[in-house]
């Protein structure tokens, strides 16, 4: 039964596309189910890009208010540090790939795109929002997934987010606070301006019976890898970047506090609250960085005790 999710019911999908239930409810899609295969392929692709953003498409289907991602494939797109744009050649590639896929008996449609934000978290930038709004206009149902390969390594779990944009001009109801994440200073502007134009979907994962078998076989590699890896070693640059970002934010907060030194008398309580929340964020960022570092150190100490302290 765990494999039934992989069955593609053409008639049901066609009927769903005709009914278009998402048209009347901008918040229609609430859940995303991603297959282990698609997740692995997206993470491996994102990591292969290093600090350069990469981009790809996801194939799958819909099931009520869930979008089900069954597979993913990379696009021949030149990314840079700040943007990924599927130039014309990628469009041609997309069409060819989808056509050949169907000929090979893979009926799933393209249900979204994914790209990476190396080191600065999973959210949609201004460019991402406009790209996604365009996709939602012409290619529904369409999902935007963002992966942060750098934070994946440091946090030891996949940093991934799935989003859908609201229609132009739509005012969303007050959003429940999603899991807190650090937004670098040089991106905070872009994040702040657009974060109300989209919402995050809940992500769950699924795997087939074959996946279970293969992952069990890989178990030996997994526990060895856990014992013989060190998040402190591989992530030096990223942590240094985070600490320097933190220092900049501290400086900025300090300057603002300095300006408002006479503020307490005149500054409205709102303003004071704002400064506090800004400092609170910075404190939380610093705690987050430190906790990850301490985790890394703990694993090193455990490894030292396990493998070095044995005396002949």
């Amino acid at each position, binding site marked *: 039964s765990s494999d039934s999710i992989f069955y593609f019911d053409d008639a049901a999908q066609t009927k769903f596309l005709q009914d278009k239930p998402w048209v009347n409810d901008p918040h229609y899609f609430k859940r995303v189910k991603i297959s282990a295969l698609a997740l692995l392929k997206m993470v491996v692709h994102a990591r292969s890009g290093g600090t350069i953003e990469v981009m790809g498409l996801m194939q799958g289907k819909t099931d009520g208010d869930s979008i089900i991602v069954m597979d993913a494939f990379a696009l021949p797109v030149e990314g840079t540090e700040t943007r990924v744009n599927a130039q014309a050649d990628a469009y041609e590639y997309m069409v060819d790939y989808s056509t050949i896929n169907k000929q090979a008996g893979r009926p799933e449609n393209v249900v979204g795109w994914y790209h990476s934000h190396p080191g600065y978290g999973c959210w949609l930038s201004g460019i991402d929002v406009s790209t996604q709004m365009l996709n939602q206009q012409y290619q529904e149902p369409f999902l935007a997934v963002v992966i942060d390969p750098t934070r994946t390594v440091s946090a030891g779990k996949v940093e991934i987010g799935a989003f859908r944009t609201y229609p132009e001009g739509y005012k969303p109801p007050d959003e429940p606070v999603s899991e807190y994440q650090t937004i670098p200073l040089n991106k905070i502007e872009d994040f702040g301006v657009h974060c109300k134009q989209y919402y995050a979907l809940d992500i769950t994962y699924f795997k087939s019976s074959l996946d279970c078998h293969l992952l069990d076989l890989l178990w030996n590699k997994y526990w060895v890898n856990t014992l013989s890896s060190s998040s402190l070693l591989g992530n030096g640059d990223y942590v240094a970047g985070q600490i320097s970002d933190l220092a900049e934010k501290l400086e900025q907060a300090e300057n603002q506090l300095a300006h408002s030194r006479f503020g307490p008398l005149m500054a409205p309580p709102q303003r004071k609250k704002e400064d506090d929340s800004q400092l609170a964020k910075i404190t939380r960022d610093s705690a987050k960085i430190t906790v990850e570092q301490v985790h890394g150190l703990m694993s090193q100490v455990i490894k030292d005790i396990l*493998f070095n302290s044995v005396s002949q």
Partner: protein
Amino acid sequence: SLLRQVSSLLRRLPVIESGKFQDDFLMEYNDTLLITYLAM
């Protein structure tokens, strides 16, 4: 053959003993403690 495998495994412990490793390990340890101190 099993016992031979076990004895060769034990002979591999401790996995590393070089002075340079101790230096690098303590350096990393201190760096992390410094970050913790700064965070505090």
